[in-house]
């Protein structure tokens, strides 16, 4: 594999631009359906089948893919993203002819090499050389073609000294290098790649990145399935976001990435802790949540967007003095980031706060937090021993934005003064 352009930075998008709408199609998928039947009780032996011939035939249908359609043009670097269970692995396996679709049509132009996992089919008992041949043929090369290329493969993997060593004596890093070189050498028209970027040490990752860049320049059609949004934004011309077996979004990778992160935090992960750990005397915290601009509860806040917190407090005893509602925001490690609060005076509202008085406090907080999960702790205090305290009253996730060191990203203004030279 000649890498003639070693200076090319894989971190830039300077590969060929996305092929225009006139480019021929590489993959066309129309209305693809795939469901799995999950038996509620698996019948694995003849005896069970014989004893209960009609029992245990109940299945739960799981619709892994539900009417997926998309087109990929030749020369395009296409990303498929989605949460676990969104159907992306199923889609990949259908494209790779590992599963058969229930209905719908897949058309592919040219030879396709799937890389669902690096080094599948490697036999530990065989030498690297034998495995290269075996794997090459499995990927659709003829034995002759493979024999011509095997030296190039071994060289690229930098395993020349170990070519006749059995794989069981290889380190995992060597295995990965070998597998990756085999993949590059397969020279297919369409490459299907599942999560292989996350392997190997830093220098090998760099090599992978270079290789991807080269493939992009060579005008290969590449389909990348991954969780790694950085990779998608870095390499892909377009991206497809799958959710619950349906196409949620196709287009700009950055936008797909944002949607993906949003989806990720909305639909699950950690559920809000609610008002656990509440201690109260004379006051009660009825509600504390992070909300959207429009009102409903939210679990995520996009980086840079204001954090809106709605809190409802009920006083259970009359009090004539001011009521203080305080908030502390901590990160996932329990480290306090900042606090804020509001003092409510009875004079402004009434003579005093009667028992049973409720008020709702809406706070809008400038969001300078780095991406991650945060917790809100609320305390209510007033004279006469009235107090309520709720630990982890609400939680939210800041998503999007660029990764940063530290826990906040304040706005910074620089002023540079020239002080002349020292000499």
């Amino acid at each position, binding site marked *: 594999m000649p890498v003639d352009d070693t200076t090319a930075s894989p971190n830039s998008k300077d590969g060929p631009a996305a092929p225009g709408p006139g480019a021929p199609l590489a993959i066309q998928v129309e209305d693809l359906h795939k469901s799995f039947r999950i038996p509620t009780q698996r019948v694995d032996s*003849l005896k069970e089948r014989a004893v209960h011939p009609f029992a245990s035939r109940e299945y739960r249908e799981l619709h892994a893919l539900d009417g997926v359609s998309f087109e990929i043009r030749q020369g395009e670097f296409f990303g498929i993203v989605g949460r676990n269970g969104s159907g992306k692995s199923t889609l990949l*396996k259908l494209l790779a*002819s*590992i*599963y058969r*679709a229930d209905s719908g049509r897949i058309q592919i132009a040219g030879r*396709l090499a799937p890389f669902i996992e690096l080094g599948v089919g490697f036999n530990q008992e065989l030498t690297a050389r034998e495995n290269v041949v075996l794997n090459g043929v499995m990927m659709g090369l003829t034995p002759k073609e493979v024999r011509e290329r095997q030296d190039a493969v071994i060289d690229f993997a930098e395993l020349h000294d170990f070519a006749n060593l059995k794989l069981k004596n290889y380190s995992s890093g060597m295995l990965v290098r070998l597998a990756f070189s085999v993949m590059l050498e397969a020279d297919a028209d369409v490459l299907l790649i599942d999560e292989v970027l996350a392997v190997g040490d830093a220098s090998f990752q760099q090599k992978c990145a270079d290789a991807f860049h080269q493939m992009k320049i060579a005008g290969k059609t590449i389909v990348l399935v991954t969780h790694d949004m950085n990779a998608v934004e870095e390499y892909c011309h377009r991206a497809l976001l799958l959710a619950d077996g349906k196409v949620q979004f196709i287009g700009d990778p950055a936008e797909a990435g944002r949607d993906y992160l949003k989806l990720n935090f909305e639909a699950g992960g950690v559920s809000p802790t609610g008002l656990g750990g509440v201690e109260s005397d004379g006051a009660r915290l009825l509600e504390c949540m992070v909300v959207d601009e429009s009102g409903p509860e939210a679990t995520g806040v996009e980086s840079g967007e204001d954090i809106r917190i709605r809190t409802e407090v009920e006083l259970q005893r009359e009090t004539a003095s001011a009521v203080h509602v305080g908030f502390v925001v901590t990160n996932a490690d329990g480290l306090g980031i900042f606090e804020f609060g509001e003092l409510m005076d009875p004079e402004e509202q009434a003579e005093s706060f009667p028992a049973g008085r409720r008020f709702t406090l809406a706070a809008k907080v400038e969001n300078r937090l780095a991406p991650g999960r945060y917790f809100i702790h609320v305390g209510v205090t007033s004279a006469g021993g009235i107090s309520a305290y709720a630990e982890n009253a609400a939680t939210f996730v800041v998503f999007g934005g660029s990764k940063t060191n530290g826990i906040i990203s304040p706005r910074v203004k620089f002023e540079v003064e020239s002080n002349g030279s020292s000499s």
Partner: protein
Amino acid sequence: MSSASRPVAELREVQGPSALGGGSRRFFDLLWLISVTEFKRVYFGTVLGYLWSLIRPLILFGVLLFVFTQVFKVGSNLVEHYAVMLLLGIVLYTFFQEATSNSVTSVVAQEGVVRKTQFPRLVIPLATVVTAGFNLMLNLVIVVVFVLAFGVSPAWTWLLFPIALLFLFVGAAGMSMALSALYVRFRDTAIIWVVVSQVLLYLTPILYPVDAFDSSTKERLLMVNPLAVIFEQVRVWILHEPGAPTALDAAGGWLGLLPAAAIYFGVCIYGAWFFNREAPRIAEAL
């Protein structure tokens, strides 16, 4: 990654996984390569290598020869070259048993490959049959030495032996296809097959000649087993003793061979059909 400009490829519909998918060329390339590497792996992976596959049938041969010539004296009284018949039978049966019993778990054992690569599924069970075939070829060399050493004279009927081998090979392949696909669904296939192949050993004229029976009805019953037909015919062709009944004689005419033919072709066709039907779903069922 060498070619920057390649001819524009046409869109072509993807059919999904199948028993043969990917063209016959690729199928045979893979079958050959996998069989050869598996064979190499077994014989260069152990200290004694090939000797193991020879020692096993030879020990069985030695024990049985002792039992049936010194204890029961069944063999030596009826067949002139009992030792040769026994060895030939054991070697052929070892092939059949090795091919089929290795194939039972083959598809499940190759789970990683089946679930993660595009792969003509049929290659997997067939490769075990071909690998067993390599063993058979090596063992037959030893058999030839024995045959000549025991003073069996060469005859033109030896040339017919490959026909018997072909039938045995195809039968083993058919059985392997059925077994490997069945095992994906029912894990007790493996245990059942151990028992069945044990029974088959005794229902095939290996330890005894078919004419050891006192009634022709029993001979005919034995000839219902397709393996019995093949093995008996091999005995006739290789040993060419004047009195030995051919499979046709033992079965009592062509009509008597019908059940064996029906079973044989039934197994082969069912095996191929069943495997082909199951192939697209194997990756999901694992």
